[in-house]
């Protein structure tokens, strides 16, 4: 009597396995696929000869940023970069902080994205824990490899990045260390004014000869 009972589970397991492999949407690597899609889209924008014209620079930036906005969860990133003090902020302050922090990130990283030319991105593995995944990738530049990992979360059926770990250094943790120090000494108002100043400084540099 026990044997058929076990058989039942075997059949279910086999059936599940068959369905899993038949429908890629259910596979364990969909976070990787999502990230890969974004990387490919950005690479195709960067390699588009027509978009590379200087007068279309702003347009190309906008298109790249639209892809970034789709894949990166700046709200979750801001929340984690701030840590516990996030709780003490009201809605307006939170929106203000997300705007400033994401602008700082975009202003610093767009240069790096635009500087890509003959690099290759390889996806290595993925660790999945429920609605979270860590996607391991590497940027290959000649004979050098830069490991970049994306911490992603499944929200409303979409995998989105909430942290980037470059060469073992987590962006969010790095900012959290910085922010918590500023918060301790200068409170939230100090942090906001420092962020504003930094963004202005970056915008000024952008216009200048540097770059």
């Amino acid at each position: 009597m026990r044997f058929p009972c076990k058989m039942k589970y075997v059949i279910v397991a086999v059936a599940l396995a068959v369905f899993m492999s038949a429908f890629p949407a259910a596979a364990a690597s969909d976070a990787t696929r999502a990230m890969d899609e974004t990387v490919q889209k950005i690479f195709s924008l960067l390699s588009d000869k027509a978009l590379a014209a200087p007068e279309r620079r702003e347009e190309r930036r906008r298109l790249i940023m639209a892809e970034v906005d789709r894949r990166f969860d700046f709200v979750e990133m801001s929340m984690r970069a701030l840590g516990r003090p996030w709780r003490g902020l009201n809605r307006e302050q939170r929106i203000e902080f997300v705007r400033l922090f994401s602008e700082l990130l975009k202003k610093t990283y767009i240069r790096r994205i635009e500087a890509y030319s003959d690099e290759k991105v390889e996806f290595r593995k993925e660790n999945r824990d429920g609605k979270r995944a860590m996607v391991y990738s590497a940027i290959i530049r000649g004979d050098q490899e830069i490991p970049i990992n994306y911490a992603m979360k499944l929200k409303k059926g979409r995998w989105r990045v909430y942290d980037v770990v470059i060469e073992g250094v987590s962006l969010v943790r790095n900012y959290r260390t910085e922010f918590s120090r500023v918060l301790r000494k200068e409170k939230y108002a100090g942090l906001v004014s420092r962020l504003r100043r930094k963004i202005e400084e970056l915008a000024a540099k952008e216009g200048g000869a540097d770059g």
Partner: protein
Amino acid sequence: MERHRMRPLAVAVLLAAAALVLPAGFCLAADGDAGNGMDMSGIDMDYVEDDPFAPEGGAAAVNDPLEPLNRIFFAFNDRLYFWVVRPVSRGYDFVVPDTVRKGIRNIFFNIGAPVRLVNNLLQGEVKGAGVVFGRFLINSTVGLAGFFDVAGSSLGLKPRREDLGQTLGRYGIGGGPYICWPILGPSSLRDSIGLAGDYFLDPISYLGREDFLAGVSAYSLKKINVAGEEGRVYEDMKRSSLDPYVAMRDAYRQFRESRIKNEIRH
């Protein structure tokens, strides 16, 4: 019995169908609102520390009793970089072609094999030690004294970087106070002790003891050869942070931790 067998199957079919259909629907919905800038969903969520991928213990307490002095050295290094290293490195990079720079970097890396070999062994990484030894043999001969990384590019033998600081870390010794050395840059008490130990395994330091000037020249070439690359990383970091000193200190800690845990081996 027949019904019992069928039910799980039906559930499986439903699950698979749902998995196929639901994400497509959600994607369409999400695509719609992604057009006009940032997605503010989650703004009302309270912060919760529930990250399965966060390193245990969260943010470690900052161990930096020498901060005032460290900041002076950090500022000194910053000026040294912008006033001396960067102009020299720009000139160097302009004159020396890319392939030659790569070759020089490879030669210096290859010479440092004894440090990596011993520290792989000290950590019980027998395979790692074998890789280091194999790379050294192949690159020193076929790779023309290490100029070409034949082992890496043709045989897929990737470097296994280990130093005494990492070995001590593996033995359970914490970083201790953060130290920002003049010229040498960020370190910790543990890693400084490691550096001093590794000095005796590094052939370049033997050159320096034979002929001080030759040692200093070799060290300078080794550093200026990669200064362009490293400088760009430093400038990016400085650009993106509110307090570069704190950003660098934390990046150094995270960087070393990932190497000690062998999450990254090069």
